[in-house]
Structure formats: C-alpha cells, structure tokens
C-alpha cells in the first residue's frame, strides 16, 4: 500500500456524540485529481457519503445524523471511509464534532492522504471511526 497518511490532527479512534444536546458530526472530503472514488459506510452496510453517482468535484460534505431520527441512529456504530487513489492525487479527510448551534466542538480526524511510489492501481486509504451516539 503506497499511500501515506499525514495527520494534521492525531486521528481519534472513537467519538462520543451527545445527541441529547444536539451534537452532530460533519464529514468532509477534499479531493485533487481526475475522479474521486470513495465511500463512507457504517458497519450495517449503509452508505453515509459517497462519490458514486455524482459528477467529480473537489469538496464533499455530509452531516451525520441528518436528524435525531435519521435511519434510526444506533447507539454505537462504526463509520469507515475507503478512498481509492488511482485517479486521485490527494485526499483530505476531516471529521468534525459540532455543537447544536453549528459551532465546532472538536476536530476528530484531519488527515491528508497521498500516494508514494511504488504506485499500484489498488492504492487506497481506509480510516474507521467508532461513533457512540447518546439519545
């Protein structure tokens, strides 16, 4: 795997989201290159954010949960991001914890992913985050 992660903030393995207080996560992905290919999915197989079906763009963003009744939100889940690097030069993956009023509470993950030689067609980055959501 010829992909290097440059952690701007040391990535957390898990985050506690106080749903009672209206906290939420904001997933952000920035891509440079030809065609971003990524999917953020939970351990139940539900897609949270993906580049599939969208025209290629530089910035992708998804709030989670969209509402307290979203899906419904499990108390504990795993959110894993997998991004292919073959058609991309660089990804920046950021997860932010926000207060109810939208203000930033904490940066949970902020990492850059770039390819280094030797390149391979299946170069990818994978980062998982455990999410505990109190309702």
């Amino acid at each position, binding site marked *: 795997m010829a992909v290097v992660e440059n952690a701007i903030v040391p990535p957390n393995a898990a985050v506690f989201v106080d749903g009672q207080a209206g906290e939420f996560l904001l997933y952000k992905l920035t891509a*440079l290159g030809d065609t971003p290919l990524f999917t*953020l999915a939970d351990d139940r197989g539900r897609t949270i954010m993906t580049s599939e079906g969208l025209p290629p763009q530089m910035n992708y963003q998804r709030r989670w949960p969209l509402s307290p009744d979203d899906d419904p939100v499990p108390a504990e889940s795993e959110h894993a991001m997998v991004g292919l690097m073959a058609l991309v030069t660089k990804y920046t993956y950021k997860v932010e914890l926000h207060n109810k009023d939208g203000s930033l509470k904490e940066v949970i993950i902020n990492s850059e992913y770039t*390819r280094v030689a030797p390149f*391979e067609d299946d170069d990818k980055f994978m980062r998982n985050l455990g999410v505990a959501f109190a309702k």
Partner: protein
Amino acid sequence: MKTHRRIFWICVLVLQFAVVVSAQSPTSIDQLRDQIQKLTTIANDPTTDPDVRKINQGFLLERRKQLGALLREKMATLQKYQSKVAEVLTDAEKQALAQSVSDLRNEIAALESGHVAASAGNGDAPAPSANPAAAGAPSIETASITRPAPLAVGNGTSISPGPNTLAATAPVATAPAATAPAAPPQQPDDFNNWLNARIEERIKANAQARIDQRSNVNQTETPAIANNSTSLVDQSSASDLVGLGLNLAGLTQDNNSGNSDKPSATVTATAYSLYSMFRGEQPLDPAFYNKHRDWRRLSFTLGFEKGQLNAQGQTTEDTTIAGAKYLIFSGRDASKHQRELGTVYQYLKAAATNLGQLTAEIKNEILFGKLRDRLRIPEAVRAFVQGKLSAGSLNAQQRQEFQDLLDEPVESWFDPAKIDAAHLQVRVFVRNEYFKMPGFALLQQALDEEALKEIDELIDARLDAFTGLNNAARRAIEQIRKAPQFSLAFQSRLQKQEPDEYKGQAIFEYGIHDRLNLTLNGSFLYRNSRFLGADTRRAQFAGQLQFQMTPEKSLAGRSPLYLFLASEGDWGNGISSIFKVQGKVKIPLFEGVDFPISLTYANRTELINERDVRGQFGFTFDTAKLLRAFLSKR
C-alpha cells in the same frame, strides 16, 4: 584488555547496585528517578560494553518496576483524597489536584513505554501522555531503546512490532543524537493503520501475485519529426499539464554530415494547462478537470534543434519545431467507464462495511475481552470516571449514571446493550486510549501470538471484501488504460538554410494486453524546398509496441522500465524508400523524469544509399507526475 575493561565495568555496576540497595530503606521516588536517569545514560551510551549493557538493563527494569509501584501507590492516595475532599475544594483546587494525578499517570505511562528518563529526576513534567490505563499495567515492560527489536512482554514472549510501530518504543530523550534513529514518518502510529497494514499482509499471504501496471502512454519525448528524436512514432495524447523533452546528443556519427546529432528540446503543453492558468483555477480540482476535459484534447509543442557545423563546414542555424495535436477520440476518460466503476463502488462499500465490522469485532473480543485485565483497563476506567465525577461538570443524572457504572460488575461496562451516556463515554474513552498512541504501544506489547492469531482469523473471515476491492480497482483501471485513442497531429520543422518540413499525422493507440500497448502512425510529410521542382512529398507509416518490463514496485520512486520496438516505412517522390527499425529503452530516473535511449537501423538515408545505425538518448520531464510527486511530499 577488553575483558579487563568489561570486568571493571561490571564491578562498578555491581558496587553501585550494592550501594543503592544498602541505602534503599526505603528508596524515595526522587532517588529512584535519579538512579534511573544514571542507568539510562549508561544504557544509551554507544560505547557501553554489551555485557555491561545487559546487566545494566536488568537494574534499570528493576528500578522502573519499583518507581512504577511507588507512583501508583502515590496516585491511589491522591485519588482517595480527591474523592474525599471533592465537595469542599474550589474549581481551581480541584483542577490542581486533577493535574497532579494526571502528571503521575503520565509519568507511569511514559515509564512503562520507555520514555521515563526524559523527565526523571529533573522535576520537569514527564513526556506527554494521556494514558491513565497505564496506571495499572505493571505487567508490561519495555526496554528503553529497542525500537527495531522485538518488544519484550511481561510474560517472557517476544512480539515483532508491526509495520507501523516505530513510535511505540522511541528512544528516550537523553539518548545521544548519534544513536537516535531516523525521525519516524508522520503516518499516525495507531490501531487503524496497524490494522490496514495487517489486512494488506493477509491479502499478500492469501492472494496470487499482483499484476502491476500503470498507464504511461502520454508522450513527453520530442516528436518524431525532430531529426534526433528518440522516438520513431508519436503517441495519441500529451501529458495532462506540461511535458518537456530534451535530446542531448547522438551516440553515433551522422553518415550525412559526419557530425554527431543535434541537441534539441521541446515543450508540450495542453490547452487545459494554459486555460487553468488563465482562469487561476486549481488544475487538479476534479470538477474543473472533468468539466474542461476537452481542453486537454488539444496540445501544442514548441522547441528547437541546435544548429551545428554541416558537411561543408558551415554553421547551420537552429531549427524551430512547432506542432499541435488534437485527441479526436479518447476512450481513456474515466467517465466513459461507468460500468467498471460501478463494480468498484460495490466493493468500496463492502470494504468500508467490513472494515467497520472487523474493527468492532477486534474491539469487543480483544480489547474489551481478552486483553482487558492484562491492560488493567478496569483501573483506567475507574480513574476516568473518578476524574469525571470530580470535575464538577456533570448534571445530577449524569453523575448518577457514572456512580451506578462504578457499582456494576466490570463485564457490564462493555455490554453493548448498556447504551446510557456513561457507558458509551467509557467505551469511547477505552478505544481512544488503546487505539491511539501512546496507549496503542501498550496494546501492541500485550498482543501475544494467540491474540494476533485471533485477529488474523477475524481478518481472514472478511478478506474477500478487501481482495475484491483490490481486484475490481485493478480491473477498472486496466480497462481505462487499454481503451483506444485516436488523434490527429500537425508538426513542422522550420529551417532557414534547408527546406521546411510539414507533417500531418494520424495516431492510433490501443492496449493489447496488461503491459503491452500498440501505437500506429500514418503520416504525410511535405518538404518545401527553396529550389523549383525540388519539393518532396512522402508517406510514412510507423508502428510501435510498448512493453512494460518491470512492475512498478520494484523501482521504488520511479516509473517502470519500458522497452519499445518500432518500425517505419517511408515512401516518397524523388527518393528511394527508407525502412527503419528501432529498439528503445526508457529508463526511469525518478518520478516524472525518464531517460530514453534508442538504437535505430535504417536501410539507407535520404541522401546516401548506405545503411545507417544511430543511437540517441535524452531526458523527459512530465510535470503532471512531478507535481504529483511534489504534492505527495508536502
């Protein structure tokens, strides 16, 4: 002499140990810190005799154990005090007390992960650590400077560190600079990356050898119209941004002139690179890149051939090379391969889902299960909860939840059915403590062969999702790479003392197999002579097979090695037919810079009916790849 010195040092150490032991009734925390610092200095001294180092190491470990026990005792006393007086202390006093506990906790964590000497004995704050769990992890000991070596575990077994464990046993701060290893990469040394690397290892262990290939059909060399180009054929597309080709010299003498070939240089830029620069846009923005893909169809080439002495002893002037190329059909746009990419997305989702499930399994079975007591997680959780209760920021319900949690059996703390905020926060706390540094170092040390085997079994059960993604990604990229391309090009060589040349060309490319690419050129060449009736018109047909000789991974930092076999037929009015064959090797120097070297045989030249063999070499620069290399190093 060496033996005498060894005996002397051992005597000194034993004497020192005896003195310490005699004075140790009881040894204070400060004394132990001081002793550890002295023993660490000897351990880190590169001139220390190996036998002495071994004995010294034993003494050092013993001191650490003693210091750890005293620190834990002191911390327990402080925590007891903390819970007793929480009601009467001010916020500032509570904070000061919590800081003292935190400092002790950090020192214990640093002590047990080999960082202790950084602060021991000098009263400074210990190395930063937020690992309260280490407060109760006396069974795990590490050598102080064993970074590349297997980690010593309390039960006597050795664990080879995984590929991302460099910081786990980083040398102590007092180690001489000369012996300090190279700075670790910025890649976070955490459970996530460790697991990713382990998955890759399992894939390699289980899957067949991978096929490595990557597109390298974009032309960066000088066009074939240049006399001394290293290429007989031209390719259908240019570098995405700007390509620079240099031909420095010929390797053989020119039969016509007696001179060596002319140095030349060309710059090829796509209209896209100019357009993005004009618009001030980021050229690698995928939206801009794809929206304006048609601008990449058109590229321009401008260059020159250096003038030299000709056969008559006259200095010829420089020749200007100019041209343009338009990609009429591009089958290699990713947007045209939605079917292949659709399959990739299915596997992307499967891989993400399986990564989440795998992490949850390891968390539940290994961290919360098998290693829970060994890592002394219950003690860490109690310290965490005590900290929460004494911080004074909880409401009544939250306080009650945390109080209730402490009264429960430990097993229920990790019961997924318990989903109140206190249980959720405790489980998040434990994950962040042991899946990140510095706690991850302790987790790695605690992972014995049995635990690693169990993790591998969990990975293997889900390996299909990850190998499936790898295969789907490779297949999709291969399909994109092999798709046909067709372009039209126009090139000219403008010379003051010789006839100008104009060349119209059709170029077709197709990927025959994984590493085999076919390029065909059909050209019409018009030479506009200054003499009446001396114009020539020629038709040329050239074909080239490009073989990728090496997989990319065997040439770290560079492109693969390519072999080209080409032939060209040249028919025209007023001249005899010329046939050429060429062998070329493109040697990668480093990313974005290649060194093409070619040998060409011709049955005759334009002027002389005599066989001609010439060798050429040069350099090519691909700015898109250079930019990518630059970005990857930022």
